């Protein structure tokens, strides 16, 4: 091979650039036909490492081949490279980056885009012939595979590139991609796969999930990251988690003044709206220089902001994770993180959005929104310095994704069951798929399940005369194509200005929020105060308003749990503080709060189990501080409540945050006596956590997602918003009806497993129990909420768990209300002592005779 002719060396030489060693390593690996994972920081040159590897290997050959299409324009190479990107928004910029060297070098390759945004003309063109390199998302790839001629269309494919693989690895979209890849590999066993990933705690796993064998290429060292904390002048001793930290506004304005373009990251969309509004009020002269960016804003608005960012026209953008990924905004000089980033990797990723020019450091400043976030800030800096980054684990065998994939594959050319099983098992997440699970999945798409209560009217795919599985019904086929995807959202309504002739959309807002507003009410959205005019046809019509007291939409799903790595770093900080060592500016500032905590109770500690008990007007409280993150605390609290309520009927209300948990019991309970090592036993964990879930509401809430992905709840397609609304509203109802009439349904089983593994993180729960069980108990009876207890006590979002009869709970609540109404209140009307039957029974229709009449069950009155 003549080196000079390689596109990479030509292009780099023309620019006088020297390739990095990791780039050369990737080029060599691809030349040798190897797959691999490339790990490097954003902006380090990952794209060109992989892209030139592909061009070197495939375009060099292509160019030397005689062109088949006559003398005129050289024929473009057939589809050779698939480039998977996790976000539609990234696709355009990626395509542009890939196109640049093709133009410069005159390579006869075409670049195409295929995402949910791709128009019908482009789709039609691609149906005739796919471009040489196609940039697409996991969902669109699966859709392409459903076409009848897919195998032919992909025949020339040589390489699959997965950009930002760390974003897909741990979720179901990643599993969907694994399955699509399995299909492509079965057609093309020598297909090369390259994954690009940012820093992860388990890169080897990340590689293994996509390829059985391959190289791990390390990019050059992470760039210079500088992380500091914006310290408030004083701290409040009672941190309230709901507090959005606007007290820091003045200091944030000062910081923005002193920097060029800044990204202000917040953790939720409502927080972004609040901060945007507050910054504008503080500096009205920044109108036009300040922008807002989050996932509920319309595509046009976001595009405008991104473009202005790139051109350096903005002073600052208040954003959410919507700007975590994506193209490099070169002008960004600095990042502010409002509130905790909740994870080390996320903080590093966000910090990396700044300082893209060579030689400039990435700079992130943490802005604590309540006092305890100072502790998180100190811990985050410690963890980043020590390089303790979170791991991400691919999901195990999600049957819902499998079921959806099987229908997709039946849509195309159909599939043979035996071949398909082998293919599915070649995907990492399904490597241990059992025969039983496989049989269930096939039975499910055929008639809704294996059980006796299967669904004869429900068939999505079935074997044809030759035994090939296909989708027999064109209407169902269309519907399935519309609902491919694993992202779940609540029903959302489009927000539009109320004007004749219509206007563009401002974005979308969740139905639950709008339902609480009446026409005339004001709310904050897209950085504006709006007045609700009316809601019609899934559209919220608004007009401008000038009210300062507007409601702020709360979108669901905004809360991210604290990562284990960050939690551990926090405990390490507290351990250091216990003997009175307050190191670092954050800890020194936090000192008064921690001293109060010590004086009233004790500091949460790795070596003892601190338990605080409190009797209030509300009831009997127990506070524990395992520092294991929100999800683990939720599982732990449910489990503890369930165990406490096993022998005595009790009802608990549960609050959790990232630091600890609260159990609140409505009736008297002796926590001190109950806190035995047996309570923290991890022996029989699985069945007991399942039981605790069934006693609570969690499995029911999670059902929405499972039901949708498995096709149990159809969320509709464009033009059918009404059905969307009906079906989304009823997934809780589905859960109940399944539990009552088809309790062995595997999807329900999966709903519970999902809650376990994702919502509660059962692996970490077990580790937490094992860590807590041997610890000596440090029991403190407190008279008022300590600094650590206070945020839990005021937490309004709560779970409940009860082993009491519903009737007894209702009775107590009714009597609570009677007491609350006080002595002056009207006595409730005494219930009539006469039985209804006595009033109305006719002679000859005695109760006993009726009871033995036919022996039919009487579900409504079993209790008596």
């Amino acid at each position, binding site marked *: 091979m003549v080196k000079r002719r390689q596109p990479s060396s030509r292009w780099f030489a023309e620019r006088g650039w020297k390739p990095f060693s990791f780039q050369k390593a990737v080029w060599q690996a691809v030349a040798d036909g190897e797959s691999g994972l490339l790990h490097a920081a954003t902006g380090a040159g990952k794209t060109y490492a992989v892209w030139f590897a592909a061009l070197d290997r495939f375009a060099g050959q292509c160019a030397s081949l005689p062109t088949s299409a006559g003398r005129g324009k050289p024929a473009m190479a057939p589809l050779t490279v698939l480039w998977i990107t996790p976000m539609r928004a990234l696709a355009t910029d990626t395509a542009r980056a890939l196109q640049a060297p093709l133009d410069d070098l005159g390579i006869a390759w075409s670049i195409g885009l295929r995402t949910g945004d791709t128009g019908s003309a482009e789709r039609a063109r691609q149906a005739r012939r796919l471009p040489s390199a196609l940039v697409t998302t996991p969902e669109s790839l699966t859709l392409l595979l459903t076409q009848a001629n897919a195998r032919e269309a992909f025949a020339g494919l040589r390489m699959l590139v997965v950009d930002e693989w760390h974003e897909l690895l741990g979720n179901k979209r990643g599993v969907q991609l694994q399955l699509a890849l399995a299909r492509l590999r079965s057609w093309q066993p020598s297909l090369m796969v390259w994954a690009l990933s940012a820093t992860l705690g388990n890169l080897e796993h990340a590689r293994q999930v996509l390829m059985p064998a391959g190289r791990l290429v390390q990019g050059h060292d992470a760039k210079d990251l500088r992380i500091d904390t914006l310290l408030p002048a004083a701290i409040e001793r009672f941190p309230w988690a709901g507090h959005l930290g606007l007290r820091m506004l003045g200091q944030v304005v000062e910081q923005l003044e002193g920097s060029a373009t800044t990204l202000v990251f917040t953790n939720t969309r409502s927080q972004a709206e609040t901060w945007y509004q507050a910054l504008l009020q503080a500096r009205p002269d920044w109108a036009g220089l300040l922008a807002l960016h989050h996932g509920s804003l319309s595509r046009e608005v976001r595009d405008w902001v991104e473009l202005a960012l790139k051109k350096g026209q903005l002073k600052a953008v208040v954003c959410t994770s919507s700007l975590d990924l994506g193209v490099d905004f070169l002008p960004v000089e600095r990042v502010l993180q409002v509130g905790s980033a909740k994870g080390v990797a996320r903080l590093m990723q966000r910090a990396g959005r700044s300082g893209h020019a060579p030689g400039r450091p990435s700079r992130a400043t943490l802005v604590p929104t309540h006092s305890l976030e100072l502790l998180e800030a100190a811990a985050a800096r410690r963890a980043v310095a020590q390089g303790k980054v979170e791991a991400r684990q691919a999901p195990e065998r999600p049957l819902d994704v499998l079921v959806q994939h099987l229908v997709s594959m039946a849509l195309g050319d159909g599939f043979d069951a035996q071949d398909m099983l082998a293919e599915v098992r070649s995907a990492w997440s399904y490597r241990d798929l059992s025969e039983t699970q496989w049989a269930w999945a096939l039975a499910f798409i055929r008639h809704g*399940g294996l059980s006796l*209560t299967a*669904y004869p*009217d*429900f068939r*999505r795919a079935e074997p044809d005369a030759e035994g090939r599985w296909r989708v027999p019904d064109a209407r169902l086929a269309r*519907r399935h194509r519309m609902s491919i995807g694993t992202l779940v959202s609540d029903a959302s309504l489009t927000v539009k200005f109320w004007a004749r002739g219509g206007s563009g959309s401002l974005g979308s807002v969740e139905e639950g929020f709008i339902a609480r507003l009446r026409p005339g009410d004001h709310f904050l959205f897209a950085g504006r105060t709006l007045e609700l005019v009316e809601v019609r046809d899934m559209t919220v019509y608004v007009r401008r308003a000038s009210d300062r007291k507007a409601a702020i939409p709360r979108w669901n799903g905004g809360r991210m749990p604290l990562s284990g790595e960050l939690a551990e770093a926090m405990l390490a900080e507290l351990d250091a503080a216990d003997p009175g060592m307050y190191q670092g500016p954050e800890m020194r500032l936090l000192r008064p709060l921690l001293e109060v905590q010590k004086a009233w109770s004790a500091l949460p500690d790795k070596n003892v189990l601190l338990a605080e008990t409190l009797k209030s*007007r*509300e*009831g009997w409280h127990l506070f524990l501080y395992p520092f294991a993150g929100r999800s683990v605390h939720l599982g732990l609290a449910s489990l503890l409540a369930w165990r406490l309520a096993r022998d005595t009927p009790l*009802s*608990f*209300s549960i609050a959790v945050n990232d630091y600890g948990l609260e159990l*609140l*019991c*409505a009736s008297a309970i002796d926590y001190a006596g109950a806190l035995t090592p047996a309570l923290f036993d991890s022996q029989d964990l699985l069945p007991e956590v399942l039981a605790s879930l069934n006693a609570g509401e969690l499995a029911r809430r999670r059902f929405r997602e499972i039901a949708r992905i498995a096709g*149990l*709840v159809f969320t509709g397609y464009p033009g059918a918003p009404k059905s969307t609304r009906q*079906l989304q509203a009823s997934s*809780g*109802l*589905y859960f109940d*009806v399944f539990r*009552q*009439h088809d309790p062995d349904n595997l999807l329900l089983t999966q709903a519970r497993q999902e809650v376990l593994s994702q919502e509660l993180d059962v692996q970490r729960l077990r580790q937490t129990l094992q860590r807590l069980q041997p610890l000596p108990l440090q029991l403190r009876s407190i008279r008022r909420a300590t600094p650590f207890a206070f945020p839990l006590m005021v937490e309004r979002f709560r779970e*409940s768990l009860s082993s009491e009869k*519903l*009737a*007894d*709970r*209702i*009775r*107590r*609540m*009714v009597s609570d*209300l009677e007491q609350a*109404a006080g002595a002056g*209140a*009207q006595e*409730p*009307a005494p*219930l*009539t002592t006469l039985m*209804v*039957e006595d009033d*109305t*029974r*006719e002679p000859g*229709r005695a109760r006993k005779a*009726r009871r033995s*009449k036919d022996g*039919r*069950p*009487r*579900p*409504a*009155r*079993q*209790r*008596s």
Partner: protein
Amino acid sequence: MASPPPSHISVKVAGTELCLLAEKALWWPERRTLLIADLHLGKAAGYRALGQPVPSGTTACNLQRLDALLQRFACQHLVFLGDFLHSAKGRTPQTLAALAEWRTRHAALPITLVRGNHDRHAGDPPAGLGIEVVAEPLALGPFALHHEPCTHPQRHVLAGHVHPAYRLRGRGRQQVRLPCFLVGEHLTLLPSFGSFTGAMTLQPGTGQRVYVIGDGGIWEVPEQLK
């Protein structure tokens, strides 16, 4: 705490005694009339016909619960306050057969349906069932029987349609959402009877009393200080 939950509550509405039943039905002793709102028969079957798997058994459950009520009370008139059938798709042979079979067991009972919004789309029940179908309002004694809640110049309105529920709260941050009756001066709302129906949480206005249903019992919610 061992006593069974109260199975009914008698209230005076428009000068007449009505029994609110824990079975989510209303019994009018004077006329020996049973009122049922929002049965939504065939809803699950309709969903299945559209390709949505819903377990079967909800229709059987609905009819059994009706049987139980008809056995308990010497009912002379059964009135459905609308939404008897859920949709045209739900008129499957199985559902209609189950309904016909149920009707033969109560062949002598006069039944009236006040047509609701779902009935208008689903169509009236088959004539063979012998169900008299009328448009709202149906005047009966001091009451105007409606499907959709509204006001009537002279009469107290009994209606369904909204599937009312109430969020009951208590000490220790306990709360539970329960189907309910809502009894006001001019309007009484009935809970939905159907087994596969949702509910909408309501905040009672002043003068409206709430009766929650759960675990086979019914309770009046004490009036809150507002």
